[in-house]
């Protein structure tokens, strides 16, 4: 993207901080929900080839639970909260006392609960971003899917699809206690959103 020709490192740093603030608020929300400390890794921000985006969560065919929100407004984009099945089971157990189902199938109640958790977390991520930038960001009703990571994430790439073969992804990983990587926030702003974000944050474009 031409926008990143000038001083790309600084711009990437700004986006990293954007991810940090958003996910930081979401981590706080999750920590309150669970009444347990939740850590997060430093966000990674880079252009990722479409083909490799699902590798971040274990590969294209890896089954993940994803909550997706389409963000409209002045800074449109796609927001995913992704977790593995063990993580989803733990969340259900801790928050609602549901024992993990033996089969791979989730009941409607379980899906609804997970969807709402994703909604709360994504909502706090986005509202902190909206506060920070002063841009309106209105998320759609959340939608949940349990399916292959590649199939789910390709949905967030369509806006970049017309421009090239890679997408700019703000990826933040949650870590809970000593357990390894547990949940991912993928924020993929639409290509035109970056300039607006930079302008409102006072980042020189040229």
């Amino acid at each position, binding site marked *: 993207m031409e926008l990143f020709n000038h001083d790309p490192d600084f711009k990437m740093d700004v986006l990293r901080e954007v991810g940090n603030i958003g996910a930081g608020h979401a981590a706080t929300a999750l920590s309150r929900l669970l009444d347990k400390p939740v850590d997060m890794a430093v966000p990674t921000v880079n252009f990722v080839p479409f083909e490799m985006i699902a590798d971040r969560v274990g590969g294209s065919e890896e089954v993940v639970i994803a909550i997706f929100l389409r963000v409209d407004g002045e800074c449109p984009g796609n927001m995913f909260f992704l977790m593995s099945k063990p993580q989803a089971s733990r969340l259900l157990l801790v928050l609602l006392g549901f024992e993990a189902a033996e089969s791979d199938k989730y009941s409607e109640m379980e899906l609804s609960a997970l969807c709402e958790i994703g909604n709360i977390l994504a909502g706090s991520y986005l509202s902190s971003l909206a506060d920070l930038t002063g841009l309106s960001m209105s998320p759609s009703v959340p939608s949940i899917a349990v399916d*292959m990571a590649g199939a789910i994430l390709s949905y967030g790439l369509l806006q970049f699809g017309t*421009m090239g073969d890679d997408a700019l992804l703000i990826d933040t990983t949650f870590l809970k206690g000593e357990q390894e990587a547990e949940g991912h926030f993928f924020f993929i702003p639409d290509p035109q959103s970056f300039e607006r974000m930079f302008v409102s944050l006072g980042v020189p474009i040229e």
Partner: protein
Amino acid sequence: MIEVHIVKVGMADLNVASDGASLKTTGLGSCVGLTLYDPSRMIAGMAHIMLPSSEIAREGQLNLAKYADTAIPELLRRLLELGADKRRLIAKLAGGAQMFAFAGGSDSLRIGPRNVESSKLTLAAMGIPIASEDTGGNFGRTVELNSQTGILSIRSVQHGVKEI
């Protein structure tokens, strides 16, 4: 057991295979996995189509494999190079799902059905018949085409393996 050589087809990518090799693409959501097959020469081709039409492209160098209207002619060209006969080619389609459903969603959320529609229109314009398809729904698919048999096997999380 004979080991089958598998040629991977990435997202917005296309490839061809013969001599018993298989073509495979993983994690099709709203994308369409389109295959062309010449049964008598056992030559197969597969494209992982992401968007319906190259008219919306804003990229400098067009990736032909990404759009239905450019991927299919390009795939045909590659197959003819390998010695396929256009009159014998048959097409199979899989994918084009709608992964997330929203009431009153914008047009981009209907991308799966639009990819399927555009693929079919392009095939019809080129006079290539569609042998079978497994499209739509709200789930992801991984597809593999065997160039020996022309069988397209489709794997999904909820529905297991299906052959068309």
